[in-house]
């Protein structure tokens, strides 16, 4: 049975895909997580998570054309599905609800 919740890494990947838009494949997804999310990632780990997200119907993928700078290998472009978007919103709602009412988190940085 597919899991109903997202891990923090899966959430980061889905958000990165949404931020990138049409050109979301492995390299920009990793760059987005590293630059915006300030988190070091392994490409293999991203693909493991993406395969899992695809299994659960949260993303779909299509192959582009092979290019010389990739050693003649194709890019695999990812897109967040409606179910994926719903999962992101649900996670955001859950986090926001958990965030609210914590006095230690009020008033700037900890």
């Amino acid at each position, binding site marked *: 049975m597919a899991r109903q919740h997202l891990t923090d890494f899966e959430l980061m990947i889905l958000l990165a895909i949404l931020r990138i838009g049409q050109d979301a494949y492995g390299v920009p997804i990793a760059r987005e997580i590293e630059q915006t999310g300030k988190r070091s990632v392994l490409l293999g780990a991203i*693909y493991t998570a993406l395969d899992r997200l695809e299994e659960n119907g949260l993303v779909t993928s299509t192959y582009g054309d092979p290019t010389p700078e*990739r050693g003649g290998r194709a890019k695999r472009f990812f897109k967040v599905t409606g179910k994926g978007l719903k999962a992101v919103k649900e996670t955001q709602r859950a986090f926001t609800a958990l965030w609210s009412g914590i006095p230690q988190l009020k008033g700037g940085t900890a």
Partner: protein
Amino acid sequence: MKQPPRLATFLVERLAPPNEALQGDLTESCHLGSSRWWYWRQSVWIIAAGIYREIRREPLMAVRALFTGIGLKGVLGYLWNRFWFGLVSRPAFAFVESTWGHRELNEPYQWLSASAAIPWMILFGWILTRLYREHRGMAVFIHAVWVIIWMGPRAARLIAGADRPEVLLNLELFAFETTIALIAPLIGALLDEPVKSSMSNKTVA
């Protein structure tokens, strides 16, 4: 434009589950300026995680690969032993027989005998790879784990008695044989061409 390390690419292409997009991303990142250390780190992770994922996703295939390996090794080992002992029992090799019981004289034969297993162990790895081409990393890894488990008790006995000279030689030979049993099949697996991942094969299990 920075070129990716050849050895790392060679290993990923052969030992990791086929994934054209991921390999392309690795190459592209390297061309964009990622370091060799970065490439190696990614490659090791891709191979290790790929093998782990295959075992988790297809445990039955892992078990099948294990028993195929044991059977295949048994058959090849039997054939090799018949050939090898048939060879050294010929009159031309009578001097070998005369060294039985004389450890220092017999020692070179022991090392030669252990080294002679290298070709059939490589052949074993190659055949195993031909049987499990897309999952060769997993098949070779499962075999390596089995070798370690199988050899473990003997290693413990030898290490416990390593203060005696005759046991020390056995321990050295044993370490050599174990290394061959781990490395030679891997070489055999690397000899076969990599499998190209099919684009239509992007579906998930």
